[in-house]
């Protein structure tokens, strides 16, 4: 500013001096001026503290719920796929809907960890670990459905290209075969990414346990309690020690780590797009009106990110409240996630409308019927659920007041996922129910086994997530520190001057 004013005439300079430009303060990613130590203590403390009672309650409920999936699958395998509501012509029902739903949820994790990493979005750091965990657990839940929906699950391994005596290979033209590769690759890379990102923190966890053991200063009311705490630290020493793979916080470790992280981010980024693109091929490659649509890949990916961020918010907001993480998951994080939901939700809404336009513009009577029927036929209620949850709900995120009301945001994030489940239902079921020949039109309704099996996967997901928050550091400690004001010397300097650059 000073240099500019030197070249101006004094009158103008005087005028300019009186200008008081609005200061667009970038919200810090860790608020309340916390220091590094606080961050470490906060994150590690969640794992190191004693198991809270609510955790046990949640775990019990989650296990009981997960048992529904177990029972449902047992019944399914012992009787036949007929225990589900499938029939001709609707040969794919809830199982595929649930599969796409869970896979979609799994999208946010990789997007946050890979794409946002490459785009140098600092706000990703406090949510990426949990989001990645969510991804992996969602893929686990998703994987159950395509595996068990086949008629003879004991032969499902035929989908893998394993050399066998029959000399028969899988059929590489089938989108289901692509699914096998896409989902297994995605699952593998997600686990790798998640685990690798966790190594420095596992080292920290190990070191903290070792330090406590060395100090030997265990406080506790009774001897028994002190021994108990010490025993846990012994366990941590070895448990985290093994998984930390010899991490010593050395400079070259950090250098290698950063490089590997970047490489994995680069590898995962195409996967974010490919998985759901390939899942959408399950539909788009078929000849069915309502499925055979070229808009599906981008539409599915946007929808997946949409639902994934919905799920991240569904999980993170309660965690934030329970563990008091308001300084780490700030309003800025919520704002950003809400904005992504708004953006992707709008893309999805655009796709819904564009489908109609193309159906009309394409002048194919079968296709135009498929879309009219989708919205106004026997499944109109599902369409309304989908449209209102996915298109109208995120539009509220335009308003700051809405974004700041985290209870409302949480409710909306759940609505987003309800809507996205219905989207998959609408696509899968309505297209199958009324296709080419009216003589074989039918109606699909799920059975109790369908419902319980799906319901149970939320239990399974919860079990895994509860284990995660109990045993793994919820956030990457090092990376959170990196985006703290203290971690950025220039930013720190500018902040002192009260300006920005």
């Amino acid at each position, binding site marked *: 500013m000073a240099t500019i004013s030197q070249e101006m005439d004094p009158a103008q300079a005087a005028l300019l001096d009186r200008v008081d430009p609005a200061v667009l303060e970038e919200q810090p990613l860790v608020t309340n001026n916390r220091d590094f130590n606080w961050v470490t203590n906060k994150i590690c403390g969640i794992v190191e503290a004693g198991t809270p009672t609510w955790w046990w309650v949640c775990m019990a409920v989650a296990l009981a719920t997960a048992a529904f999936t177990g029972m449902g699958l047992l019944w399914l395998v012992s009787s036949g796929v007929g225990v589900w509501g499938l*029939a*001709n012509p609707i*040969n794919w029902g809830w199982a595929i809907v649930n599969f796409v739903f869970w896979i979609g949820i799994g999208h946010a994790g990789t997007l946050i960890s890979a794409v946002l990493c490459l785009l140098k979005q600092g706000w990703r750091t406090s949510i990426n670990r949990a989001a990645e965990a969510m991804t992996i657990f969602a893929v686990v839940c998703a994987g159950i459905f395509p595996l068990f929906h086949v008629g003879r699950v004991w032969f499902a391994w035929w989908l893998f290209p394993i050399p066998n005596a029959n000399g028969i290979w899988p059929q590489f033209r089938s989108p289901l075969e692509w699914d096998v590769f896409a989902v297994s690759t995605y699952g593998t890379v997600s686990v790798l990414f998640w685990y690798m990102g966790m190594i420095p923190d596992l080292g920290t966890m190990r070191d903290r346990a070792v330090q406590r053991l060395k100090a030997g200063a265990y406080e506790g009311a009774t001897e028994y309690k002190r021994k108990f705490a010490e025993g846990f630290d012994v366990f941590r020493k070895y448990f985290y020690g093994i998984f930390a793979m010899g991490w010593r916080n050395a400079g070259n470790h950090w250098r290698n780590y950063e490089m590997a992280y970047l490489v994995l981010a680069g590898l995962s980024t195409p996967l974010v797009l490919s998985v759901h693109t390939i899942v959408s091929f399950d539909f788009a490659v078929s*000849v069915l009106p309502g499925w055979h649509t070229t808009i599906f890949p981008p539409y599915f990916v946007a929808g997946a990110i949409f639902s994934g961020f919905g799920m991240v918010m569904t999980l993170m907001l309660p965690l934030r409240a329970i563990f008091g993480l308001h300084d780490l998951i700030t309003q800025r994080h919520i704002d950003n996630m809400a904005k992504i939901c708004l953006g992707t939700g709008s893309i999805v809404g655009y796709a819904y409308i564009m489908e109609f336009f193309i159906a009309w513009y394409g002048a194919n009577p079968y296709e135009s019927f498929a*879309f009219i029927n989708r919205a106004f036929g026997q499944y109109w209620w599902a369409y309304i659920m989908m449209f209102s949850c996915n298109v109208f709900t995120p539009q509220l995120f335009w308003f700051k007041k809405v974004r700041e009301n985290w209870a409302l945001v949480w409710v909306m994030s759940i609505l987003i996922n309800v809507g996205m489940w219905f989207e998959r239902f609408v696509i899968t079921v309505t297209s199958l129910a009324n296709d080419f020949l009216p*003589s074989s039109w*039918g109606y699909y309704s799920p059975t109790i086994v369908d419902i319980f099996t799906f319901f149970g996967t939320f239990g399974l997901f919860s079990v895994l997530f509860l284990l995660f928050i109990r045993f793994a550091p919820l956030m990457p400690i090092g990376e959170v520190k990196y985006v703290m004001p203290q971690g950025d010397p220039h930013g720190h300097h500018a902040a002192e001057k009260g300006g920005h650059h």
Partner: protein
Amino acid sequence: MNESELSGPRYWKSLDDLAETPAFRDWIEREFPAGASEIEGVNRRHFMKIMAASFGLAGLGMAGCRRPEQMILPYAKQPENVIPGVPVYFSSSMPAPQGHIPVIVETHQGRPTKIEGNPSYHPYGGATDGYTQASILDLYDPDRATKSRAAGAAISSTAVRDRLAELSRAHSADGGKGLVFLAEPSASPSRARLVQAIQAKFPAATWAEYCPIDLSAAERAAAKVTGQALRCLPKLERAKRILAIDADFLGKDGDIAAARGFSKNRKVKDAQEASKMSRLYAVESGMSNTGAMADHRLRLATSQMGAFVVKLALELGLSLPADVRESADSLELDANWVAECAADLQALPGESLLIAGPHLPESVHALIMVINDRLNAPVDYVDVPAPAAGIEAVAARLAQGVQTLVILGGNPVYDAPADLDFKALMAKADESIHLSYSYNETSAEADRLIARSHYLESWGDGRTRDGMLVPVQPMIEPLFPAFNELEVLARIAGETETEPYAIAKTTFAAAGGKDYNKFLSDGLLLNSAYPQRTLSLNPRSLAAALAAGELTAPQLSAGSIEVRFEASSHAYDGRYANNGWLMEVPDGMTKLTWDNAILISPRLARELQNEQGIQIFPGSKPMNQQDGFFESAKGNVQKNKAQFNRGKEAAVLAELTLDGRTIKAPIHVVPGMANYSVILPLGLGRTEVGRVGKGVGFNAYTLRSSNGMGAALGAAIKLTRETYRLANTQEHWSMEGRAIVREGTAKYYQEHPDFANEMGVESHAPANYGKDDSKSLQEKSTQQFRGGSAYEHPEFSGPPPNVNIWQGNEDKFPRTQQWGMAIDLNSCTGCTACVVACQSENNIPIVGKDQVLRGREMHWMRLDRYFSAAEYKSDEVPEDVQVSFMSMLCQHCENAPCESVCPVNATVHDRQGLNTMAYNRCVGTRYCANNCPYKVRRFNFFDWNKRQIGDFYKGPFGAVDEPELEKMRANPNVTVRMRGVMEKCTFCTQRIEAAKIDQKSKAGASADIHVPDGKIKTACQQVCPTDAITFGDISDPDSEVSKIKASDRNYSVLGYLNARPRTTYLARLRNPNPKMPDAYKKPYAYSAYKERYGNAPKTSEAHGEAHMDAHTDTPLAH
């Protein structure tokens, strides 16, 4: 069994046997004759025991045709003509109400597996009907009567024989005064001979015959008019103008000859031949297959038919008595319809024909006989034996009390007229004996049950409808100790000859037959038909035969409804009530399975709905009703159907009251029915029946009394608030204007020979084959031009890539035959026999009502039925409809959408162009079924074959074992599919392979390995009475199928998808008479297509029609 019955040399198994110790006798009694039937069904252990026992008994005179020993021991010496794995075919015939149906039975190691028509009998040309196809299942019915019973306890065969001999002795003293017989009508000359013997021996005995579906009204009418019983055999192949008076001669009332003859004049090779097509007028109360085929159809109540025929007779210039003439005034009708129809009939004398429904009163039949005579109609009249006394005679005798009532077959307690109260009457007999194949309502009331053998286990004979003598041969020794009707009669008559074989042989000799073995192998005796008579009408007896009362039309209304009783397509008169195939095969018109329903017209339904305030049709106003947006988007969601609740028809239960008797049954609305006629299908609602028929449908016999056997007046319907689920396999009746079944009129076809290919999306799209579109079918089938497809096609023109051929000799490599099918929609009458034949040939399981409700029926072939109306209204079920049938089966697409999506290569193409299913490889992703545009793939959601109906959901708690008896029915050449795999039509690949093997063994070293055309017949093709289905090698331009596919009416369903189906259809033609008041320029289906998808301008109805014509005159101008 006594000593004199021992046949064959005496062998002994043990010293006990030789000494005939009581213990050994006891063992036989316990192990075989009684033990064989002691359990419900047969399990594997027990079956082995039976087989072992039959070994033991082989020397004791039980040696017969059953050869289970082949299954467990190799032959020490190979019997002649028995090669394991190669089926043996025997001729026989099936006793049917219309006369015997000559059949050829396929047997595998002494085990009948499939029934086909005997092509030597030319009127049927090798075709059969659905009942015949399904009759084989009854043989292996675990619920059949497996033993004779007396007072509830099982008795041995010897005891039965003793009792019959006793009976004969006891009644011979007084000439059979206390003896009453009630039998089913039979066309067996042997039985007729034995009946004569009985009447000679017991002159005072009563012999009566009863069948709930009476087919003899025309014969009785002829007896009144001409003095002798005559059977009218219409020669439909010579008829150009046919008027069916409430006659479903192509369906329930007809025989195969009628459908076959009719179709001969409906087959149109090219546009020039269209003018030769016959024209069918139908006047009917229900919506029948005949009505579906009709070019003009008039809805009229059955009780008004008489008046209609009188009007027609007057129009044709017949002179009738005054009271009869006046009776015509009672009917209000479009006079033009009758006048123009009469004029059309008169215009072609000698080629016009009237056919009357068998349930119509005798006066109508008499009058039609006269009209046919006036028209010089192509009808043969043949002498038939005079009908025996009816059930009323038995009732009269029983009322006085009789000593012995012998009921031979049938089920009068269930199906006798309700006013007779046969159950109570039967109790008046001192002893009642029932010869029955199954334990039914009558058996439950009888003192003694004699288990009857199946016709596939019996010797006998019979006559076809036109009187030709045909044999009944056993294919297998009776599976259970059962009796043949001939033996029972012979023993009662005290004949010395009691073996049915000997009886039939003697009858054959008496009928002038020479070579019995040739008769058995031919399956018929030529020139043995009933003698023909020229009709000599006696005007005086004619006048007497015409009762004005039967010809006067009553007034009908929603409060006074006419009830029609009709054989059900599932159980006929009740005899097939335990036949799972027939229960599950959808009714041709209603598409209902596992049920019958009160069939009512849309008008009556609406009136009842308005009057009684109970919804029959869906109540809510459809969201898209009369909305311009939907019109312009060409989407219209049909709401005008029955109430469907989650895909399951929720039919309103109604109470129907007739003459003070009430039944409660579900209502099903059928378009095209006469306004105030309702149809009650008979034969269901059985109470004493096996596991299959239990709880299926309602019993309409309880309403039927002797004065209204065909139709009764004065019924009332009261709707209830209850609903009942009907297992309907087709929810949607409208084709939605899609070009699926393509139809034109004969005239339009003459003007636009290519009309069928100017319909559908493909008519607006580039050709699938691109620049190769003009290549011949043969080239296309072997070269597989890619056109616009990204899908790599195999080449079938040369050797496969893994076969080495001498260079330069590739052309000498034998061309692989390319299989294809053509279905002529103009010939298909929707009789549904193909569906049952396919089920029988391909081991297709039944799944039960619950699973059909869920939409899991397994039929590889289905018969789609669409209704179309002159004007489509999305909120109303039409009253006048045209019906279109389309048999839908795997189309064997060259670009099969199912193949490219299977992740495990389970469904693949072979070099013959077949889309094959490798069941072993299938993991059951069901993606193929989703991607099949024709929805013809069927998935085994459960172990249909191993689990019993009702046990599907039991998981580890249900039995997983197929009863041995049911297993015996299976075709060994077709895999029985397990759960979790997909299945579908294979073009009967087992038949193709058998023919290829046969040809290769014939060819020897020569290269002549091509199966000759016509050698392979798929099961559906073989059974088709109208030859609507043609199968063969499409790479051979001279094959029948290639010639048919060359027709300009040939089209592919959904051709635009470029799936290139190997199954194509010939568009249907209708032949309206332009002078008729209900004439139409285009079939309704075609108009609907043009209106909704055919680029016709959106204008008002009248304008649209005119515009449409102008538009279609230049079809390429869009």
